[in-house]
């Protein structure tokens, strides 16, 4: 792989806190290696800002290997940037060329208020999980792990859904600010497994109710969520959740 260095112009959203009015601030960065990750480019910029006595740009990040779901930048109008099936921490600078201008914004959604600069509050996702994203099994209650065979295909599909990292890119990308991909991934994971059956109906009803309460929008089949999902979670999960929801709504014993 050939390596190169580049100079770039950045426009980054700055906002002191949740109540302050934000705006874009322009920066120039030089001698950026194509081998760097996108966040390492921000590290270089922040190091310079600190040395100049300025406030560094605040952004969420932790594992830097695409699995924790903390990083969340809207890069040139796309959640997590230009590469498909990718988190912004795994985006590398070889995606850009010398002289490019890069616009970086936080996730924008009613349900994800900005806390500072590029950091948003995604606690609404935890609240949806609290509404039913689990199997009610206390520690120590389990039967032998091989007592209930699970069809391999179902187990694999369940894992595809369960690979959601809860980053919120789906919400940020959706013009309606819908969280349907996130919620449906969890509903699907458990609906595909025998262990999820006892609470199948109440789970989907409660999670969808909580999703609405948190201020997420509706799904109108635009599929932007799937396009930006770093784990490639399919919109077929949404279809499954809709089936589960209607099934539960018409047959639940309330």
């Amino acid at each position, binding site marked *: 792989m050939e390596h190169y260095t580049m100079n770039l112009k950045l426009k980054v959203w700055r906002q002191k806190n949740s109540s302050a009015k934000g705006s874009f601030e322009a920066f120039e960065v030089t001698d950026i290696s194509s*081998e760097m990750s996108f966040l*390492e480019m921000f590290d270089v910029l922040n190091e310079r800002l600190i040395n100049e006595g300025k406030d560094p740009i605040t952004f969420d990040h932790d594992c830097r290997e695409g699995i924790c779901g903390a990083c969340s930048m809207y890069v040139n109008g796309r959640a997590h940037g230009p590469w498909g099936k990718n988190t912004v921490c795994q985006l590398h600078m070889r995606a850009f060329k010398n002289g490019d201008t890069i616009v970086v914004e936080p996730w924008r959604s009613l349900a994800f208020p900005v806390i500072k600069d590029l950091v948003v509050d995604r*606690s609404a996702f935890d609240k949806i999980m609290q509404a039913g994203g689990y199997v009610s099994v206390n520690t120590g209650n389990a039967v032998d792990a*091989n007592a209930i065979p699970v069809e391999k295909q179902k187990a694999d599909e369940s894992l595809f859904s369960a690979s959601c990292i809860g980053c919120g890119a789906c919400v940020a990308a959706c013009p309606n600010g819908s969280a349907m991909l996130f919620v449906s991934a969890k509903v699907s994971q458990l609906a595909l497994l025998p262990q999820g059956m006892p609470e199948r109906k109440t789970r989907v009803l409660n999670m969808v109710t909580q999703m609405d309460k948190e201020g997420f929008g509706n799904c109108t089949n635009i599929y932007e969520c799937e396009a930006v999902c770093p784990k490639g979670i399919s919109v077929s999960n949404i279809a499954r959740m809709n089936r589960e929801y209607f099934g539960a709504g018409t047959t639940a014993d309330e």
Partner: protein
Amino acid sequence: MGLDAKIPEGDLETKWKDYKSHVKLVNPTNKRKLEVIVIGTGLAGASAAASLGELGYKVKVFCFQDSPRRAHSIAAQGGINAAKNYQNDGDSVFRLFYDTVKGGDYRSREANVYRLAEVSAAIIDQCVAQGVPFAREYGGLLSNRSFGGTQVQRTFYAAGQTGQQLLLGAYSALERQVALGNVKMYSRHEMLDVVTIDGKARGIIARDLVSGKLERHFGHAVLLCSGGYGNVFYLSTNAMGSNVTAAWKAHKKGAYFGNPCFTQIHPTCIPVSGDHQSKLTLMSESLRNDGRIWVPKKKGDNRKPTDIPEEERDYYLERRYPAFGNLVPRDVASRAAKERCDEGYGVGTTKMAVYLDFADAIKRYGLIEVGKHNMKNADESTIIKLGKEVVEEKYGNLFEMYEKITGENPYNVPMRIYPAAHYTMGGLWVDYEMMTTVPGLYALGEANFSDHGANRLGASALMQGLADGYFVIPYTLGNYLAEEIRTPSIPVTHSAFEQTENEVRQRIEKLMSIKGTESVESFHKRLGNIMWDKCGMARNEEGLRSGIEEIKQLKNEFWSNVRIPGEINEMNFELDKAGRVADFIELGELMCMDALNRKESCGGHFREEMQTEEGEAKRDDDNYSYVAAWEYNEKGEEEMHKEKLHFDVVKPTQRSYK
């Protein structure tokens, strides 16, 4: 203070059973009155908090991330061990116990390790019941694979994202308890000190990382599940935020630190590419099931790996360790890679890398597929294509990650890998009940020192985190809290809370007032360089002595010249990081002291002065068969205590994987 590990009497096989049968209990109405604080929401923290909430305790949980689901257990890839013997290949509780004690190079406690092996099977049951989608065979039953240091298949997995799935299971159990009101969750909060009253842990001072405000929280007991300290090396496979602060504060409040120099350098990580690098990425050990590690036989061979013919390749692990081959334990594999690179056989631009090659595996799987589908006369490209599909199903996400980082396609060219700091076997000293030397203060998971000795086997960290949280602490905590039922909740206006909060505040103000010229990040990098050079994969007396001096100097510079922008009462990641780096610097010095004291080589701790003629680690059981437990004493000095290790069942021998 004497060190009593409180190991129950009796045979190894019955210790835990007997303990559980006789341990004191807390009745349900009393549990409601008892408050427990849990720091950290990784596998240990989330599983402990959920289980204790289920039992009826009032639990408060703290994590510095924006959600408990982001704790770094999420990044564990390969799998979790359990002595299920589903494969009928001779596994048993005893064998898992034996492999772990041997793998740890005879520096762990037999009773703890046996208990770990004993509860391992129940962990898998629990996780499956939670809806963790483990890999399965076509018959619907669970699938297993092998990991380093074992000759059976006992590792359960969910593609290359086992940690994620297990953590999401524990997280969902935790969120269920939050919904039920048994657990209160504090995200974006960092514990900055332990509050002790009359010698017992009674709460914490935490900082709200959004507002910057300090908070006081009372607990009848405090559980530290705050992970390891691999980030002391700056570059490691840990998350950027992983830190030692909670454990270090506990240490300075009287908790002994066990074997701090025992760190694990993982053999298969993507190599460093430049100075800008902020972290290193692991390529799961599971890849060594199928990947073959090699370097060219000729020094400085600059040909493309695919142009180097078979007979000019040195599969050095297979050559040196025919019995275990590419699946030797991590410490052995790491040192062997370093040895080849130091000798000039390394590959890639930096020459600090070796190849991990899947060409053979792709061919082998391709042939199996061709056979399965009865495709006679299949050509080479069909075989390769089918083989790649099998490899993709097994390791697809890892291959994808490698390609994103390096820009190279590992299906076609071998991966380049090199060892990197990954896990810390050392940690807070705990007794059999997981209690530190401070009554009421516990340490679980990677934060404690207890189960892995001088080297952890692959797929055992997930096992230990969940064992501690789901199946050990629910019993052992009750034994302590049974005596606390008469202690009403202490109001946080108590002078101990006020005093500790003041100390925390003064430290933060001091950090902010330095207004120097060098960034926190820069200090952290410098510390990492010292630690990697002097206390990394190979250590010697001279290096460790100079390391200690350099760290002292660095500490002085840090406290007189660090620059932290922004303010205290706002979201200020630089300030958060400054506190953590300050603690890492102090820990780094202790690690060097511990490594200097231990004049033997064992597991991940390799003293160059102590090796066999073949370059293997040479233990000194006569003089060092003990846990070094360091006390931060009243004079502010580190003082070492010894917990002698007893091996009643497994007799220590020279570890051999040949």
